[in-house]
């Protein structure tokens, strides 16, 4: 998701790609100057966000879990602490908005007969991969609540699952992020704004 957004947004914006691996794992297109940073560290997050007007935080959408003992804990810490450190760095750099790319899968546990919208309480499973994007949402929401930053939460499905299941097409994802860059978050009186971005499947009709 992050790489696709870099490629597609680079046509109309100056994109500063940041990741935690030494080299980008995917083609970033015209988005050059990849910056490797461990977002768990304030000393690494601060230079990573320098010069940005808006942050797009896509890591919680694809929270890759490692292997071996402790992998679940490491994932949870990377996403929860990493999001906290990233938002703190953004606030310190006077960046006014963060766009979080979360997962529509947070509602998989809701019975199919319900029409779910973004105001519903997420129902992650008690597993690290399911909890991680919810942790990122809570961090952004609570910091936005106290006025430190505007946060736009976009819950998306998998990019490669658009044929009748709960996927999000690249076009829909990019359009939602473009809108999130400029949407008047404060119009409703809150600094937390959220939307479901789903192209097909059970959640598409309420997105």
């Amino acid at each position: 998701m992050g790489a696709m957004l870099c490629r597609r947004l680079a046509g109309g914006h100056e994109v500063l790609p940041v990741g935690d691996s030494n080299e980008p794992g995917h083609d970033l297109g015209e988005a050059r100057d990849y910056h490797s940073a461990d977002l768990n560290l304030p000393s690494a997050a601060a230079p990573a966000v320098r010069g940005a007007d808006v942050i797009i935080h896509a890591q919680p959408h694809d929270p890759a879990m490692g292997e071996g003992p402790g992998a679940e804990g490491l994932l949870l810490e990377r996403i929860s602490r990493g999001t906290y450190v990233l938002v703190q760095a953004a606030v310190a750099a006077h960046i006014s908005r963060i766009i979080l790319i979360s997962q529509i899968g947070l509602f998989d546990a809701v019975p199919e007969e319900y029409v779910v919208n973004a105001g519903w309480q997420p129902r992650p499973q008690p597993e690290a991969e399911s909890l991680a994007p919810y942790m990122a949402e809570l961090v952004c929401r609570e910091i936005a609540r106290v006025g430190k930053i505007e946060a736009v939460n976009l819950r998306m499905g998998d990019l490669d699952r658009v044929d009748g299941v709960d996927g999000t097409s690249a076009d829909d994802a990019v359009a939602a992020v473009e809108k999130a860059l400029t949407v008047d978050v404060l119009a409703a009186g809150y600094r937390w704004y959220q939307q479901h971005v789903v192209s097909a499947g059970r959640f598409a009709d309420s997105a």
Partner: protein
Amino acid sequence: MATVKSGKVVIFGAGGPVGAVTTTALKDHYTLRCTDAMSIDRIVAEERRQSDTAPLPELLEAPHERAVVDVTDYQQVRDACEGMDAAINLTVLRSVLDKAFAVNTVGAYNVAKAAADAGLKRLIHTGPFHSRMSHPADYWQDHQIPDDVPLHPGDDLYALSKYLGGHITRIFAEERGLEVMTFLFCGFRPRQVQPGQRGSGGSAFTVSWEDSGESFLYGLRAGDMPTPYEAFFIAAATPDRKYRVDKAQRLLGWQAADTFEELYLRPTD
């Protein structure tokens, strides 16, 4: 039936002051496995108190046990839960980024997962209720605040990382059939009110060390809860009516014996 009237209880964070008073309150009723990230023997030997008035843990004899357990390591937590009937998670790390999420968030995950995997009947989780966060979304201006009010941690490292841990334990309760109580604390103080303190005022949302320990005995012995996840204010009733504390009385049968009434009464000549 999630009631635990006897049996074995593992305590995580038993080396801290709440762990100390909880151990004292439970030791004659349960077989305890007292664990902490640091050797409890060392905590006692070096008199590592968190504050001047904070109690130190007792060193209990067998059949009670002591063990060093790092809650950020799932396997250690799982091993500590083996054979237990209930768990109490008192672990906390307040102000160090390097460990706050590891202990307060990941540690909560490890304890809840291990408790569910081990088939424990009841988990008592703990966390802070910050009465004053100095942001417009706190409840400092309100009165009769109930136990179930949503926490608004803001960007406070301690409050936020614990808040995430609370949500994690809630989700385990809802999805894994584990009964979880979360005890929310704010301030602690000694039981005795000194003569010169009469009329000096008290902090709302305070409990004596001794009463805080007793609350866990009532938590373990309480009957089934209305929902798998219930939060409780563990505090004394105070005449300022800032916080409601009747839920613990209603569902656990616990209320603070120490109400520090003298702190609120006009000094006598």
